């Protein structure tokens, strides 16, 4: 599946819910299902600090694809981290760099990505793109 196919699938999954609490229940479930990050990566080096919640993000570059594992101390943040991983992990640097993340807005979770929210998610997306740019640069050397 392409990045946009995954995003469309996510929008579809959320479209069955009208009620906010149901949507958040799904986000929370996704947070609980997020594969655990290796504890050795839950360090300051991989920490993306927000003022309200924290995100840890670890990249791995193999066969021109970047895989991410991640975690957060808040379960709702972890749910959205889980969505982002599902969309962006296992992609080539080029795919990640050119990705447009429209699905988060479409399912009504845009407020979590607002710059004032400071939960680490916006910084997480920036960090993912930075890793992609770095790997692209080193990979083509």
């Amino acid at each position, binding site marked *: 599946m392409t990045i946009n196919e995954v995003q469309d699938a996510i929008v579809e999954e959320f479209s069955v819910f009208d009620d906010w609490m149901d949507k958040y*229940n799904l986000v*929370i479930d996704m947070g609980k299902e997020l594969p655990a990050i290796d504890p050795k990566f839950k360090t300051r080096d991989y920490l993306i600090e927000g003022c309200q919640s924290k995100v840890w993000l670890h990249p791995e570059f193999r066969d021109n694809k970047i895989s991410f594992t991640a975690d957060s101390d808040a379960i*709702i943040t972890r749910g959205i981290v889980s969505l982002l991983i599902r969309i962006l992990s296992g992609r080539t640097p080029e795919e990640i760099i050119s990705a447009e993340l429209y699905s988060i807005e479409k399912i009504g979770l845009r407020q979590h990505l607002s710059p004032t929210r400071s939960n680490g998610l916006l910084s997480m997306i920036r960090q993912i793109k930075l890793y992609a740019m770095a790997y692209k640069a080193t990979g083509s050397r």
Partner: protein
Amino acid sequence: MINCIDLKNINDIRADFPILATKVYNKPLVYLDNAATSQKPQCVIDKVSEVFSRYNGNIHRGVHAISDKASEEYENAREKVRSFINAEKSREIVFTSGTTGSINAVAFSFGERYIRSGDEVIISHLEHHANIVPWQMMCDRKGAILRVIPINNNGGIIFDEYLKLLSSRTRIVAVTHVSNALGTILPVKKIIETAHSMDIPVLIDGAQGIQHGDVDVADMDCDFYVFSGHKVYGPTGIGILYGKEKWLAELPPYQGGGDMVENVTFEKTTYGELPFKFEAGTMNFSAAIGLGTALDYIRSIGTENIERMEKDLLDYANKRLSQIKELKIYGHSEKKIPLISFLLKGIHMYDTGMLLDKMGIAVRTGTHCAQPVMDRFGIEGTVRASMCFYNTREEIDSLGTGIEKAVKMLS
């Protein structure tokens, strides 16, 4: 003119605040973030609108009718502030941009005039950043030392430790009237009396104090009292610096510009009289006038009534929230404003706040700009429900039910 007429019951009071009828996510708004900013009664909204629709002329400058009218209203507002806090003279009331602006002004001007290397400034562990950082900046500039009164597990200051910190090196004590993070009401009168026995002036940060009861600066005998308009049902962007005349007369101005001067030449400028020497440039006069109306409104309800209603809310909230076994309250001081700071066992504050929001309940999560308080309790932040007289028991029930629902979803 709109009058804020005699008020009888809570429904009448709530009807004065149009925003309280708002719905968020199709649910009635339960506004429990009053410590961050309070809502505005219609009379304040109308007053600000009246300024712009009828007499928007720059104050203290024009020879024309609407400038005169605006100046008169602005000075009336100053007089209302004076009377509200029972200051002796209206020249002791300086308009600023807010609590932060007021503290920065005092920290700068007082520092310039009185602080030398090795001098000490005392604050408490309960301060929000606005009453920490300006003093730190001044101490850095002057080579002075910041001393901090520690707090106990209930969130009250340890008075004996305060006594130990006071010394011949202490130049000023700056403490909060009420903790914004825990709700503790500090024994400000005792703090002031003790400092005064050693001829040390005291600044009281009233950002969370002014709106919850009677503030009488004459009785309190503080040297400075500062607060924000927007937390006391007035507009944003306006604040008050009250200072005893003997101090304000001695302090140098902290900003230069128009309206604060008596005479300007390129060689020398002489400053205007109090309070104008501290009001450089065009002041936020519409907000100042709106603040005057907000204080009228509070008076129409009565500070005693406000205290009584808010005590009832706090007691009720304590009782309701203590039924939730996963909930831990931070701040158990005997004297508190109606504010409850809490965490749910094993649940991140951000998650709690997010879900409450989706139920229409507005609370604040985080450090509340008082990081040292959170560090003291070894936590990263809390969920804070801050009430005021227009809140109801039903809203506290909604909060209780909302928290229980959040616990269920998040555990």
